[in-house]
């Protein structure tokens, strides 16, 4: 398995997906070797071995792809060195090579070619989306080479699959859709708070549309001034969003928490009345799924992959501030709606967990191993 981020230092859905997938694979009795550019620390999982380039581990990368809040920076040549190391990795009993997103695709393709093992590539998001239509050519090239070399491509939603087919020319026959999931958790008992809390929890990246959250907040507080909007997470947009909140006159109604610990995250989910994920682009939206698993009704943008697996969520065009504001107000004002959607949303995201996702992934592996490609 070739990835990059792994808990505890992860910033997005990819880290969660890879960790949960490897954990379930190991539980089923598979052994996983996880190749990462980083020296760790890694949350250990029995059955999963971690390897990184021994002599020159790479320091985490900043900016749009901040890992664990580190301010480190890629050095020229880091990516090539990592990929060269992957390409030469001594393959043992491994049956399948599985790479996630663009970072290690070149090395993974070379390794698959050299060893005769099938290559699976999971796409969690595309460079087009992360850059809001201004892709970095090098990353795009690495995505394309992986997509071309892979025997099977896994997309985390149908929406993403369509994009891979239309934008990247991937043959639809080789794409499988396997959604993300959430861990089974207790329904959190709601902490009482005098003010109702509307929560955004996620990276502060351009593709997340946090602008819309703030603009909707400005509309909502005009009729419900007691509402508190919480922005939890960090990222390159932080400064701009602070200024926007001031400009909109909602600085006293919006709380920027920065990066939150696991414990703080649980507390937030137990306190919030409504969860909002207004992403411009959201291939899946694990953050919304986790909020729903905690029993919080969620509002997501229409393109979010999670809307493909549940009807118990409000979907809104990412640019439609009035509609976001309306949906937030409706959930705040109508307790019967909040309860019904919270309960139904929780049921719907708990229906299939990581175990099912891992089984589906193993199904993809078997398509290749049984194909006689080995």
């Amino acid at each position, binding site marked *: 398995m070739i990835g990059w981020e792994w808990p505890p230092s992860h910033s997005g859905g990819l880290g969660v997906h890879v960790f949960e997938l490897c954990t379930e694979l190991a539980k089923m009795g598979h052994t996983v070797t996880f190749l990462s550019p980083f020296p760790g620390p890694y949350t250990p999982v029995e059955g999963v071995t971690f390897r990184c380039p021994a002599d020159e581990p790479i320091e985490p990368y900043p900016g749009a792809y901040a890992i664990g809040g580190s301010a480190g920076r890629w050095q020229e040549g880091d990516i090539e060195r990592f990929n060269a190391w992957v390409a030469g990795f001594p393959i043992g009993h491994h049956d399948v090579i599985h790479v996630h997103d663009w970072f290690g695709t070149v090395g993974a393709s070379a390794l698959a070619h050299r060893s005769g093992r099938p290559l699976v590539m999971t796409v969690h998001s595309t460079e087009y989306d992360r850059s809001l239509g201004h892709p970095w050519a090098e990353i795009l090239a690495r995505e394309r080479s992986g997509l071309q070399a892979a025997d099977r491509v896994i997309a985390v939603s149908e929406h993403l699959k369509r994009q891979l087919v239309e934008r990247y020319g991937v043959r639809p026959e080789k794409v499988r859709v396997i959604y993300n999931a959430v861990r089974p958790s207790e329904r959190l008992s709601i902490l009482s708070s005098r003010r109702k809390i509307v929560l955004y929890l996620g990276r502060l990246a351009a593709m997340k549309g946090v602008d819309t959250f703030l603009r909707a907040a400005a*509309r909502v507080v005009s*009729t419900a001034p007691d509402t508190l909007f919480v922005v939890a997470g960090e990222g390159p947009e932080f400064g701009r969003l602070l200024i926007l909140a001031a400009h909109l006159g909602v600085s006293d109604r919006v709380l920027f928490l920065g990066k939150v610990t696991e414990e703080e995250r649980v507390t937030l989910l137990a306190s919030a009345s409504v969860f909002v994920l207004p992403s411009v682009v959201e291939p899946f939206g694990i953050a919304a799924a986790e909020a729903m698993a905690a029993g919080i009704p969620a509002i997501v943008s229409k393109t979010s992959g999670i809307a493909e697996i549940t*009807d*118990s969520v*409000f*979907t809104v065009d990412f640019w439609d501030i*009035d*509609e976001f*504001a*309306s*949906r937030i*107000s*409706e959930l705040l*004002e*109508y307790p*019967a*709606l909040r*309860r*019904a*959607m919270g309960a*139904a949303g929780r049921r719907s995201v708990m229906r299939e967990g990581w175990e099912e996702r891992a089984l589906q992934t193993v199904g993809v592996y078997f398509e290749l191993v049984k194909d006689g490609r080995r």
Partner: protein
Amino acid sequence: MKVVLYLHLHQPWRLARFRYVDLGSGRPYIDEHRNLEIFRGIATRCYRPALGRLADALDAEPDFRFSLSVTGTWLEQAAMAAPDVLRTLHRIVRTGRVALLSETYYHSLAFLLPPPELLDEVELHRAALQREFGARPKVLRMTELAYSDELARFAEGERFQGMLVEGWEGILRGHPPTHVYCAAPAPTVMLLARHYMLSDDVGFRFSSKQWNEYPLTAEKYVRWIAATPGELVNLFMDFETFGEHHPASSGILEFLSALPRTVRETPGLSWATVEEAVELPPRESLSAPTTVSWADQNRDLGAWLGNDLQRSAFEAAKKVGVLARTAGNPEILETWRKLLTSDHFYYMYVGGHGADAGVHQYFSSYGSPYDAYANYMNALMDLRRRAVERISDERSMGTAGRNRTR
């Protein structure tokens, strides 16, 4: 054996998307244009061809007779969207062989509200039928064929000779639906029980290729009717069965055309309207302590008031009703009544799976029950605000008036 065919014509005034931010904006709750567009579509596929065939059958078959209920909201939309359909309906009613039924004007849940709302809405509907067709119905049908002892007493008080009920075990208690019964608490009110097996053969199963009786011909169907023991067979269904629920390509319109003749040609069978049927002597008296309807598998009120969303919306509507009446403004009262139409609550049904959920989704104009609820509540809250404003205006004007006289 009498064959009693009864068809129900109804379209609701569906709400437009009325967002929370639209509260106080003066935007209308009802998108008239969209409703009329839907009506025109159904008129083309169903009302025009099916009413045309019924009119032809009345011309060709002097013994053919049937019964119709037409809601006020359907009449309003027909007049605006498809006046020719309304003219055909007039022509059919003028034959004197089509009985019309009473019900609430708005196809509403008024029967669950404190009096006098139910009476007011039945009166509104009576007046509309009088105006439109010069008709005064003798038989009452409640929204979604709801029936209970309380409703029987209401019907008796309003001098109705009969009511339609679902031929369901909860009411019939072992008796067949093929006799006339009377209401235990109101013996002057005859009950006509829907034969749901035979009715649903046409209403639900006609176009289903998985059904082992597919395809259903008029001959086969009438054979089944003739083989049914009893005095009458009550075939009650939505009018939209013919061309809308089952498309014309299923052969449903030809089936409808063939029925009148096939019944005439079958010895022992004859057509009757509901008004003729209630003249038959009752075999038993039946009681229904709880409300029974023709909706869903449970035949109760679950289709509109089965979940917390529906109950909360209805409770809110009840409260706004008190304000709407107090406000004394006809437009506010009328809008509130349009919001009482049962369809709005039906859209808030949360099923998830099973046959019923599919049926609810088919009829819904919303993406989800949560959409339906939020939109409804927004409209209702806006109406409440308008009613309250009106009431406080009146009060302050009243005070000002008194001050002046002093």
